[in-house]
């Protein structure tokens, strides 16, 4: 659709280097041919070349073979961003199994829930999960390398969690072809795009972290330093000097605060490009980066179900509020303003949820649940979100309906709504409004205790920070759904 527009961003030399692959296994072959001696993964302790990285991946595959893992088995990769997380992901996907990416920093309960939804019997994980065979990469003994499996583009290869269109936890299954289409389109951006230094801040459990950060990094022969500890950001950037950052806009805003303390050099002095996605990008923040700091910023739009990348905007100051032009190998149509997409990047379905899968498609068109339009020049605009997602600065997002479903089951709760609201300090915090009976202080105390207990099972950023009681029902739509502000 916009192949020339995006291709023209690259130099002739880059265009010649840029190839479209159809499996993760082909990425191994290509990068070993081109970049074997170049750095692939950098940590404060060591740097692995592509040859060394793929050797480790091969040994992980040898481990899976030794455990008797069959092709198509779903294996959770529930590790925080790290070299081991990258190696485990690449090993599972090139072995012929399915890598189910689970947030590595959450409590054990949320990992167990995720494994349950996806039906995983095995996990690469640092903790023991109930009912799951867990392998801690720091403790397992890796045997000799095993070769990659020969896979087809249509074979399922990885799965990522999403709120889906109904708000319940779902696990979207993607094929090799979808993952590599997203990766191919991820390369397009202001030159230079090859041989960059990426910094892995966005969790690899998020499709944006895997496709646009990890896999695009490798397709361009670049190097990545996984961020293993958020408190090490300043030191990491000072040492590693990233040239490209992939961020959620809120995280880009937080990093902008760092420049107020330390100046532009806080990024290490060599940062050229910031790529944002996962939430709408504010133009003013982009302007500060581009005009005041001289760091280019581009943004994009995509969903888990579309292998991350649908469109990209490399002209954020002149085409404000647009999410850019649509990448190639996909088509977009609008039905009652809803954006619907078909193409090579579309997911295969939600694991163990045929009903939701069926509801998400109109034939081969995936119904995004987002509303929008395209102008005459082909720039896409998002005008509304059906999904009500709440975005956090760490790159994560939640469906409020998931938490509401748990609160609604608590005794005394008639209905609830989760949103970001200001508290008495004026800070925006995750707030749960609870509709209950008036003059029932014991009930309110019990509900507060139940929410505290629920919080202990949630990741830190998804915890309810403020509970507000109300004694009349929420305003509702004609379909009797709570009307969100």
């Amino acid at each position: 659709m916009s192949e020339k527009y995006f291709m023209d961003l690259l130099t002739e030399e880059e265009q010649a280097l840029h190839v479209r692959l159809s499996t993760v296994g082909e990425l191994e072959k290509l990068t070993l041919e081109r970049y074997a001696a170049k750095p692939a993964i950098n940590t404060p302790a060591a740097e692995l070349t592509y040859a060394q990285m793929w050797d480790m991946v091969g040994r992980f595959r040898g481990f899976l073979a030794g455990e008797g893992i069959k092709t198509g088995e779903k294996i959770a990769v529930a590790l925080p961003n790290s070299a081991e997380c990258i190696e485990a992901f690449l090993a599972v996907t090139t072995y012929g199994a399915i890598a189910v990416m689970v947030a590595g920093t959450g409590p054990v309960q949320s990992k167990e829930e995720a494994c349950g939804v996806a039906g995983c019997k095995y996990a690469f994980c640092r903790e023991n999960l109930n009912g799951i065979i867990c392998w801690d990469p720091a403790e397992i003994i890796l045997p000799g390398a095993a070769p990659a499996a020969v896979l087809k583009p249509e074979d399922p290869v990885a799965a990522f969690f999403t709120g889906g269109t109904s708000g319940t936890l779902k696990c979207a299954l993607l094929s090799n072809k979808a993952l590599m289409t997203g990766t191919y389109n991820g390369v397009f951006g202001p030159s230079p795009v090859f041989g960059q230094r990426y910094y892995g801040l966005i969790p690899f459990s998020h499709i944006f972290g895997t496709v646009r950060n990890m896999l695009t990094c490798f397709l361009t022969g670049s190097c990545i330093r996984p961020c293993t500890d958020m408190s090490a950001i300043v030191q990491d950037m000072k040492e590693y000097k990233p040239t490209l950052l992939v961020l959620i806009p809120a995280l880009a805003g937080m990093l902008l605060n760092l420049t107020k303390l330390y100046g532009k050099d806080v990024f290490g002095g060599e940062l050229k490009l910031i790529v944002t996605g996962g939430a709408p990008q504010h133009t003013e923040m982009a302007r500060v980066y581009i005009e005041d700091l001289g760091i280019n910023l581009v943004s994009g739009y995509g969903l888990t179900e579309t292998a991350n990348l649908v469109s990209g905007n490399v002209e954020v100051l002149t085409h404000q509020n647009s999410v850019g032009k649509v990448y190639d190998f996909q088509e977009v149509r609008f039905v009652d303003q809803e954006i619907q997409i078909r193409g090579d990047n579309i997911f295969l379905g939600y694991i163990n949820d045929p009903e939701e899968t069926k509801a998400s498609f109109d034939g081969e068109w995936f119904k995004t649940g987002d509303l929008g339009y395209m102008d005459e020049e082909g720039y896409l605009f998002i005008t509304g979100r059906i999904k009500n997602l709440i975005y956090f600065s760490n790159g994560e997002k939640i469906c409020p309906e998931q938490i509401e479903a748990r609160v609604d089951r608590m005794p005394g709760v008639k209905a609830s709504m989760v949103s970001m609201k200001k508290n008495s300090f004026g800070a925006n915090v995750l707030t749960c409004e609870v509709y209950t009976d008036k003059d029932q202080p014991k009930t309110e105390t019990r509900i507060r205790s139940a929410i505290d207990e629920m919080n202990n099972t949630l990741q830190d950023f998804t915890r309810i920070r403020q509970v507000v009681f109300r004694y009349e029902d929420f305003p509702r739509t004609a379909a009797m759904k709570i009307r969100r502000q």
Partner: protein
Amino acid sequence: MSHDEIVKEMRDILTGLRPDIDTAQTADSTRLADDLGMDSLTLLLMALKSEKVFGIRFENMQASSFATVGDVCRYIEGKLQ
């Protein structure tokens, strides 16, 4: 530097980082996450700014280490002794 002086400095630091919140009512018992809406990154920024203001070094910047403003002030107080 007395504990009250450290709390006062902390209010200034918080105002600089979060001009949107009312820091005048910040006290020892003010909760970093629940009351001030701070996450791991804002906590990191607060620690970095505190290092400059107080001339100390934070050994631990994990969000889970500090629940309240008082926890942070006592940590700084200990470092200054």
